[in-house]
């Protein structure tokens, strides 16, 4: 009997190893299998994640990390101002386009789907999270995910009609989607890749020389000065289109032309030029610029995300609005 049991264990082990080998060569089936297993883990993980975030928040409160408050609030307000400035620039561009009859004015319509981070990946080698929303909610791979933190959490008296000031930053993209769960690829993950824009900023009281394309096709330097109307930094000149990737720790922008003059403090936002994303979704701030050793005309830019990904719990998934699409709706 013992011999038979031992033999059967060997056969079972062989079968399981063959199944694993099959999962390696048939990744599509492996992905479906993972999707099928997830619902068993989600309820337990969800509770654990809540405990984790709760403990982290309380720890920050006790150690005073969360009351770094005033400076942070000012920074957040400056970002709001930056957002408004982008909107002004965008509106000016649209007015110009309408005036010339060269385009049509189309506002971006989207649905923000609230979702919750239910688990992290079991290894810290990848920066990914499991979200408690999936295909049944209209989520698809490629959808952008933002933070869902409100600015009025702190005890500040807000004007009556102002209901919520959001701190909405892009945290990543959906990479894989099951029926009731989805994998969020954080912006710092090594597989993350997204089109974005860098806004060159000019600080209060400062000026900045930016090379701008002239109508003739060449480039000419233009000096931008801070207008002094607000305490925050202003964007100087048009944004620079870039491709954002993650390196496991930060966001990296490779092979950016050095003559754009990107420097620390500049702001990275989502690229809304194709009309696929709402305006002004901030991603992060430039912290370092390195000249390429092999190509002197290019630089590598390192960006620190605005969002605190370690304590991420509540997020919005940005679902683009389709008129006829049955899967996605809203406005």
């Amino acid at each position, binding site marked *: 009997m013992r011999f038979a049991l031992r033999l059967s264990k060997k056969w079972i082990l062989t079968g*399981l190893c063959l199944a694993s*080998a099959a999962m390696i060569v048939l990744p599509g089936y492996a992905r479906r299998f*993972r999707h099928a297993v997830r619902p068993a883990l989600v309820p337990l993980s969800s509770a654990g994640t809540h405990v984790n975030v709760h403990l982290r928040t309380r720890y920050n409160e006790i150690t005073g990390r969360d009351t770094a408050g005033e400076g942070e609030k000012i920074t957040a307000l400056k970002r709001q101002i930056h957002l408004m400035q982008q909107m002004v620039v965008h509106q000016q561009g649209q007015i110009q386009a309408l005036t010339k009859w060269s385009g049509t004015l189309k506002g971006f319509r989207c649905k923000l789907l609230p979702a919750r981070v239910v688990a992290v990946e079991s290894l810290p*080698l990848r*920066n990914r999270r499991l979200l408690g929303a999936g295909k049944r909610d209209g989520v698809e791979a490629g959808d952008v995910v933002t933070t869902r933190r409100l600015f009025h959490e702190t005890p500040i008296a807000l004007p009556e009609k102002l209901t919520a000031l959001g701190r909405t930053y892009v945290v990543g993209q959906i990479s894989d989607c099951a029926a009731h769960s989805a994998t969020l690829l954080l912006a710092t993950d090594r597989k993350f890749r997204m089109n974005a824009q860098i806004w060159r900023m000019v600080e209060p009281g400062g000026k900045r020389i930016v090379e701008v394309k002239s109508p003739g096709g060449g480039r000419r330097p233009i000096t931008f000065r801070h207008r002094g109307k607000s305490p925050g930094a202003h964007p100087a000149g048009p944004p620079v289109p870039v491709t954002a*990737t993650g*390196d496991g720790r930060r966001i990296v922008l490779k092979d950016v032309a050095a003559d754009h003059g990107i420097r620390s403090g500049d702001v990275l936002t989502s690229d809304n030029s194709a009309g696929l994303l709402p305006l002004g979704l901030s991603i992060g701030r430039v912290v370092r610029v390195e000249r390429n050793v092999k190509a002197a005309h290019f630089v590598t830019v390192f960006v620190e995300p605005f969002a605190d990904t370690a304590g991420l719990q509540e997020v919005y998934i940005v679902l683009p609005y389709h008129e006829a699409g049955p899967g996605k709706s809203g406005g």
Partner: protein
Amino acid sequence: MRWFHFIILIFVALMGIVVQTTAGQLLWFRTPVGWVGPELLAAVAVFVGLFAPRATDAALAGWMLGFAVDMTLSGGGAGLPALLYAAGCAGIFQIRGVLFREKALTQMVIGFVFCVFVYEIWTACDVLIFGRTGGGYFRPILQTLGLSIYTAVLTPLVCAVLKRFQKFLWVARSSRT
């Protein structure tokens, strides 16, 4: 090792994976090469490899633990952790005759070697086979080394906890301590 013991081991793996995907994040810290944190199921696998009664049992239990890790990962390389865990546990079982397996230092070294074996291969496959990554090839390797060291430090602790519940997992006589 009876099937009842495997059911208990599945429960241990499930609990381990839930802790690792939730509260385990509290143990992570940020380094210049990325986040580094421990792999608790690797420590359990070391315990299984060192104290399981038979090689088949060790490999089977290792496969279960690797499969549990696998189910919480995303992207390419599905199936690989389970195979590597099974091979790692069987390997530890084969060499344990020449080890002082009750010693904390032994458990640390084995924990480190196990993690390097499993996760360096997994990372190499992820980087070389399953697609383009940012940050080059050197950073993920360093990050995996960090994970291995961190796990090695915690392995004796996990082994000490599991040793107390060993009678629920299997009955084994230690030949060399």
